[in-house]
Each structure stands twice: as structure tokens, then as C-alpha cells.
């Protein structure tokens, strides 16, 4: 008995692995199987169509547009999230009074479900007396206001901004953690050598932040490329299909009788996610070596 107990620590990963296999790997395998069929989701019968689903994808305009939207959102959002997250973190890192409170507040929007956040912003943007047009009117900037959500090309920006607003707390916290793990002696050494704040930042702090950047970039890209909830509540893919992301496209098409095809598009989404992340990672590795 003690023999097992002594070896027990080697098996501590087993529960996790089991859970993972049953609830993830198994369905995934079946999902890949489905992606090679033309299953409609309701009729029991289906045929294997091999790669036809993938070919169909590249010929479908709406699918292509969804891909475009996903890429726009999925590449711009992480950049913005990281930029603002970093700036906020730098701000929070300065020893200002009350920064703990402000930090807690800035992170607070993350707690709300994205679906509800979308509805809140919907209410705020309502052209009929929502908070935002009212404020703009009140300060005389009413010409700035436009019913952005009604415009095919502007709506996506609203979504990007709402998403940025809600989730900027995440990267901020990670960058803050990174900043706080930069030893202060290093920074002091740099300032003794005559570097000002920004020089210190760029040459000393940033390279040490690369692990933080890496984490943020990966999680943000993955999260942004899979964006769903916030679009559903703000525009539901509209107007028309102009803001439909790839995840939404998959979801919609899957239940419009093209489950096999939709799953295949899911596989495509996986590749779409993989490429930018791999690209970003290798860029960061380069930066790591260079510094």
C-alpha cells in the first residue's frame, strides 16, 4: 500500500487527463468525423463528402465575409487590448494613491457576461435617447453621432470598442504583474545611467515583459478570433450579415440544416486561429533573442 502511495504523485495528472479525454477529445474526434459529411443535423442519414465541405467554404461569399470580419476583429482587438492594457498597467504601476481601487474598478467590467454588456451598450447607443447620443448632444458634439450599428461598415468598430472596453482589465492585470516582477534595481541602474522614463521603459522593462506579452497575445488572439456573445447582443451579425463572425456563421449554419459543413468550417476556424498565434509567437521569440 505504501508502495502505491509513494508512487501516487506520478499519477496526479490522471484525473485531469481522464476528464479531458472524455469531455473533449472524444467529442472532438467525432466532430472531425462529422466535418467530412453532409449531415443536416436532423435527418439520420448522411454521406461522406470528404473535402467538399472545405471547397464549398471557399466559394461561399458569406463565409468569406465572416472570415474577413473574424480576422479584422481578431487581429485588431488584441493589438488594442494590449496597447491600452499596457498603458493602464504603467499608470497603475506608478505609486499613485488609490491605485488599488482604480485597478479593481477597471477590471470590474470583465465580470459581467459579454452578452449583458452588449445589451447595456445597445441601450446606451440607442438613437432614441440613449445615454451616448444624449451626452454628445449635451456637450454640443451631436454632429459626431451616427447610428453606427445601422451602418454595415461602422458596426464592427462599435463591437471592437465595446470588447476593448470590457476586457482591457485582463491584459492590464497581466502587464501589471509583469511590471511588478521587474526588479527595481534594474530600473534604478538605468536611471543612474541617465535614462529617462521612456528610455527605461523601452530598453529595460519591455524585454523583461516578453513573457507577459506572450501570454496576452495568445489569449487575446484566441479569444478575439472566437468572438461571439458580444456580437450577438449588439448586432446579431447585422445589419444583414455584415458583422457576422466565423463562430456565429458556424453556429447559424449548423442549425440551418448544414451541420456537417458547419463543423468543417469549425476546423477552418481552428487553422485561422493557429496561424496568427504561431506567427505572433515566433515574432516574440525573435524579440526575445534580439534583446
Amino acid at each position, binding site marked *: 500500500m505504501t508502495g502505491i502511495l*509513494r508512487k*501516487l*504523485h506520478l499519477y*496526479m495528472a490522471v*484525473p*485531469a*487527463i481522464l*476528464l*479531458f479525454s472524455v*469531455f*473533449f477529445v472524444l*467529442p*472532438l474526434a*467525432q*466532430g472531425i468525423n462529422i466535418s467530412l459529411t453532409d449531415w443536416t443535423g436532423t435527418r439520420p442519414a448522411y454521406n461522406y463528402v470528404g473535402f467538399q465541405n472545405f471547397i464549398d467554404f471557399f466559394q461561399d461569399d458569406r463565409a468569406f465575409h465572416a472570415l474577413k470580419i473574424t480576422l479584422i476583429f481578431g487581429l485588431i482587438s488584441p493589438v488594442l487590448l494590449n496597447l491600452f492594457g499596457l498603458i*493602464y498597467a504603467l*499608470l497603475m504601476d506608478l505609486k*499613485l494613491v*488609490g*491605485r488599488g*481601487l*482604480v*485597478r*479593481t*474598478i*477597471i477590471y*470590474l*467590467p470583465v*465580470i*459581467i*457576461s459579454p*452578452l*449583458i454588456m452588449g*445589451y*447595456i*451598450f445597445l*441601450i446606451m447607443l*440607442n438613437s*432614441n*435617447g*440613449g*445615454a451616448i447620443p444624449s451626452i454628445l*448632444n449635451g456637450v454640443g458634439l451631436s454632429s459626431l453621432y451616427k447610428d453606427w450599428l445601422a451602418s454595415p461598415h461602422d458596426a464592427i468598430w462599435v463591437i471592437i470598442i465595446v470588447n476593448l*472596453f470590457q476586457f482591457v482589465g485582463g491584459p492590464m*492585470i*497581466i502587464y501589471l*504583474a509583469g511590471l*511588478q*516582477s521587474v526588479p527595481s534595481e534594474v530600473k534604478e541602474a538605468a536611471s543612474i545611467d541617465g535614462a529617462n522614463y521612456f528610455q527605461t521603459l523601452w530598453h529595460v522593462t519591455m524585454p523583461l515583459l516578453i*513573457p507577459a506579452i506572450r*501570454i496576452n497575445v*495568445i489569449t487575446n488572439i484566441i479569444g478575439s478570433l*472566437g468572438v461571439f456573445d458580444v456580437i450577438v447582443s449588439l448586432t446579431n451579425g447585422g445589419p444583414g450579415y455584415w458583422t457576422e463572425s466565423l*463562430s456565429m456563421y*458556424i453556429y447559424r449554419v*449548423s442549425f440551418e440544416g448544414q451541420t456537417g459543413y458547419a*463543423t468543417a468550417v469549425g476546423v477552418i*476556424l*481552428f487553422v485561422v*486561429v493557429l496561424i496568427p498565434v504561431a506567427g505572433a509567437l515566433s515574432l516574440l521569440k525573435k524579440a526575445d533573442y534580439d534583446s
Partner: protein
Amino acid sequence: MKKVVLYIIMIVLALVSLFPFYILLFVALSPSTVSMSAGNFLMTEIDWSNLLHAWQRSKMEIALKNSLIITAGSLILIVLFSAGAGYVFARVNTWYNKFIFNFILFSLFIPGIINTVPLYSLLRKIGGINTHWAMICLIATGALPFSIFLYMNFIKKLSREIEESAIIDGCSEFGAFWRISFPLLLPITSTVIILNAIAAWNNYGQAVFFLQSQEMHTVPLAISRFVQSYGADYTMMGASALIGLIPVTIVYLSFQRFFVSGLSAGAVKG
């Protein structure tokens, strides 16, 4: 002088972040006949009965109970499994461990949508639809990759000496980890708890598929009933959302002081 500007920026940021919460309050507590179209959003009338109505109509006590059970259950599984797995991957450096770890991380890239339909069939076969335990397992599974990653990194930095001295004193490695090292993991555990409590509590996409009867509804499902009808009843949605925010806010506020330090040790140092 520069400091004043910085303080102003901080205050503005805080106010801006709080503004949507205010709007939520406004929508939730204004009587339902007060409409936004008048252009005002200053809370002049407060109707507390909205909260009562939302509570009753969305059967909030059941939803809260379900959400609590599911969230708590998931957290327990996540913390225990991830810590255990994190230990193995950090300390036991075999090729198969490395492979499994990468495999699990890899799954972060895979869109969850591919799994939904097969998962539904699978769960139906094992009688998991509409149950707490299936939902808990599902959420825990989704949380494993990142949580294991966090634990692994943190554990790598833990000095082995404490564990080794415990082993010399007669503890097994297993015991040494759980009794000695694990309590030291509090910062990263807090992080794992916060991140996953939020995700589990707000889980809608999976809950809507796998929890169908009203008896099993979680808070997001209860709230969404008000926006699913032909016309959205924002007042009720706001009121129920407000109620639903309370537990998760409490968890956040309780654990958040370890949040930054946990991440800094666990995630950020390579």
C-alpha cells in the same frame, strides 16, 4: 503638476469603467414605464419592486442555487485536477508528460463549436443532459488547459527544499505536495478561482444546450429569458442581471488581492 494630470486620468478611467454599471442600475431600477426615449438617464424614480418581480419571474432562487452548485463544483475540480496535473508536468519530465501537456494546451486553439453536437449525443447516452455533474465536468474540462498552465509555471518556481525536508521526515511525495506546497500556492489558486468563477458563472453557450429544464436553469439562462421573447424586457433583464452579479462580485472582491501576485509568479515569468 504632472501628477495632477495622472490623477485626473485615473479618475476618468474609473468613472468610465463604472458607467455601464450605472446604466444597468438605471435600467434595472426605473419603473418599466420610464423609457429611454425621453433622453434622460438620470435616476429620478426608483422602483425596488422590479427586483422582486425579476426574482419571481425568472425563478432566481433556483437559478442561483444551480449556478452556485455548478460554479463551486467546477472550481473544486479545476483546482484539484489542475494543481495535480501542474505538479506532474512541472516535476516529472518524461516525454509522454511533455506530449500530453502540449496536447492539452493545443486544445485552446480548437473552437468549442466543433464539440457541441457530438458532446450532446455523448451526454445523452450517459444520461448527462440536464444534470449538475455533467455541466461541472464540462466547465472543468474547458478550464483545464489554462489552469494547468498556470499551476505548472508556478510550481516550477517553488523550491523543492521544503518538500524534500518533509519527505526526509517520512512524508510521501504525494503528501508533501498537498500538505506543504499546495497551501503555498494560494496566490495562483486565487487567480485560478477568480478567472474560472467568472467564466463558470457567466457560462451561457454551453448551459443553454445542456441544461434545459427550468429546474436546472443557471443565472445566465434565467436572465436571457427576458431577452428571448419577441420583445426584450430590458427592465427585467437588468434587474435579474443585477441580482446575478452579486455572488460573482463577492468572489472577485474576496480573492482579488492575490490576483496580481498570483499571475506575476505563475504566468509572467517565462
